[in-house]
């Protein structure tokens, strides 16, 4: 079992839900990466999704796209993020999940990246422009380093496809809660409960909901029907505004027991 999956299962075993914040590496400068990660893990998050900026982030909504533009303007690259993470890897106690578009990995060199990523504490990968059918270019290298390749499962997918993706996903299943791109939203489709039940019936790998989750109520509501949440745009905005109260409330909403 991957370390990522194991960590999430440990969280859910005591009744809590997994809480995975998404941050944009390099937003506000790469110097901010270490304090941000350490502070998030102090708040009791389960894992941290570390976003790598890209010039053409087609799966991202305006909030994350703008954060990415700020990070690019600050000179952030995949290589620099990996190096920065390696610099404080011994202080990181939660698994990191890197989210990057495919081309920067190809430019880095898939094997080199997998090796360096592992040394940087990266235990999972999300590549939003690489569907399962194309994953052979990276999967063997990630597998060799024990890095879980997380699949996104969308509402628009056919049942047959949903089953295949759910079974193939490593670490956790990233269940996209809306048709669309990342970004905060008001409401979610009612049929989500059924959808999550179906996903969970295919696998013992935890199912986490993501895209559009932005309030403690969302966190609780999704927590009731799956194994946890990924919160992106809201976290990115809160970090950019140095609003840690909002983040703490979101994390708390995923816990049954009070945070120690």
């Amino acid at each position, binding site marked *: 079992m991957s370390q990522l999956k194991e960590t999430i299962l440990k969280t859910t075993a005591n009744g809590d839900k997994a809480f995975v914040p998404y941050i944009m590496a390099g937003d506000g400068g790469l110097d901010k990466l270490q304090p941000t990660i350490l502070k998030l893990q102090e708040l009791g998050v389960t894992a941290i999704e570390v976003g790598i900026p890209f010039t053409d982030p087609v799966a991202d909504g305006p909030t994350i796209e703008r954060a990415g533009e700020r990070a690019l303007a600050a000179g952030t690259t995949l290589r620099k993020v990996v190096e920065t993470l390696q610099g404080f890897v011994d202080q990181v106690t939660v698994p990191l999940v890197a989210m990057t578009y495919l081309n920067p990995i190809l430019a880095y060199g898939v094997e080199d990246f997998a090796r360096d990523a592992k040394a940087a504490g990266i235990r999972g990968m999300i590549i939003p422009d690489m569907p399962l059918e194309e994953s052979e270019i990276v999967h063997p290298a990630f597998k060799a380093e024990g890095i879980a390749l997380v699949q996104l499962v*969308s509402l628009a997918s056919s049942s047959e496809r949903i089953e295949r993706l759910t079974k193939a996903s490593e670490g956790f299943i990233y269940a996209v809660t809306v048709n669309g791109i990342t970004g905060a939203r008001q409401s979610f489709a009612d049929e989500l409960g059924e959808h999550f039940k179906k996903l969970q019936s295919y696998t013992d790998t935890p199912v986490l909901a993501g895209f559009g989750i932005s309030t403690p109520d969302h966190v609780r509501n999704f927590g009731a029907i799956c194994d946890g949440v990924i919160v992106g745009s809201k976290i990115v905005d809160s970090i950019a505004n140095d609003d840690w109260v909002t983040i703490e409330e979101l994390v708390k909403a995923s816990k049954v027991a009070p945070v120690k």
Partner: protein
Amino acid sequence: MTTTTTKKGRFGRFGGQFVPETLMTALQELEEAYDKFKNDEEFQNELNYYLKNYVGRETPLYFAERLTAQFGGAKIYLKREDLNHTGAHKINNALGQALLAKRMGKNKIVAETGAGQHGVATATACALLGMECIVYMGAEDVKRQALNVFRMELLGTKVVGVEKGSATLKDAVNEALRHWVTNIEDTHYILGSAMGPHPFPTIVRDFQRVIGDETRKQILEVENRLPDAVVACIGGGSNSIGMFYPFVEDSDVALYGVEAAGHGIETGKHAAAINGGQTGVLHGAFMYLLQDENGFVQEAHSISAGLDYPGVGPEHCHLHDSGRATYVNITDDEALEGVKLLCKTEGILPALESAHAIAYASKLAKTMSPDEILVICLSGRGDKDVHTISSALGGDLT
């Protein structure tokens, strides 16, 4: 065949479907619908009806006598895609895909545009067929191609300027993809060139191959033989693949794709993905791509908005690797010379895109003998470019 699409939509090692999961089902649906209708007689009859009676096909294959004399070499023929309704080859594909979308029960269309020619063609097809249309266009291009923006709006299309990134064609594609992901249920994306994720490169090529099919038939009629060389400009690669495809198996026909060298490849300010890029993934396909050492996509530069794209369709990448086609490049200045030359010798104002093909042909023709035949794909007319051409030549049209 050298270029047959393999199961996963590959041309050799190029192509594929590098898109967010949310799009995979839509791409599958599109592939199934296309497989069903491409050989459907009723669909083909409908398409052909509009191509003939609305677009004005077939377009002439015109013997350019004065240009031939001017070049002093091969006999020059121009495939007159500029005479199509809306002024370029783009309508062949826009109409085909709009009719396909109708059959798929999707009545809303999203498209990207660079020069505005594909946007105008799509807006036109949507007006004709009573469909709702939204077109994304880089804010830079909105400025460069104001005339086409106005035309699209007159046709009832909503034009959205994209300020992000480099505010050109690639950013318009990003926004169009996002729009499609968010409105997948009732919207079809009419991609404007032979690029993007499978099955787009195949669909667009098939709707554009009418250019090459007609050319083949026409040249056999007048010359009783195939041309020795065919030249076409390369943006995403649709007019060129449409022209090349019917000749791919004819190994005696040399195929030349002309990329935009902008200020010159050595300056880094160009749009020559094959001659000046490395392989990578953007907009759903593995292809040659302008990028830096970090895998970040670089801005393309060309005087011609329609060639100003950092990638190139996967089938061209494969034709380059296999050596079947040759990819060359032409600078902004050379293209401007091409514009002037065609105006003065033949009375035809070419699009800046097409002028790249003219300019390369002027070099190539000289190396050929008078009994050899060279066909140039004149992909569009230059009315949309008069402001750009005027200011590049030091004028001041306002």
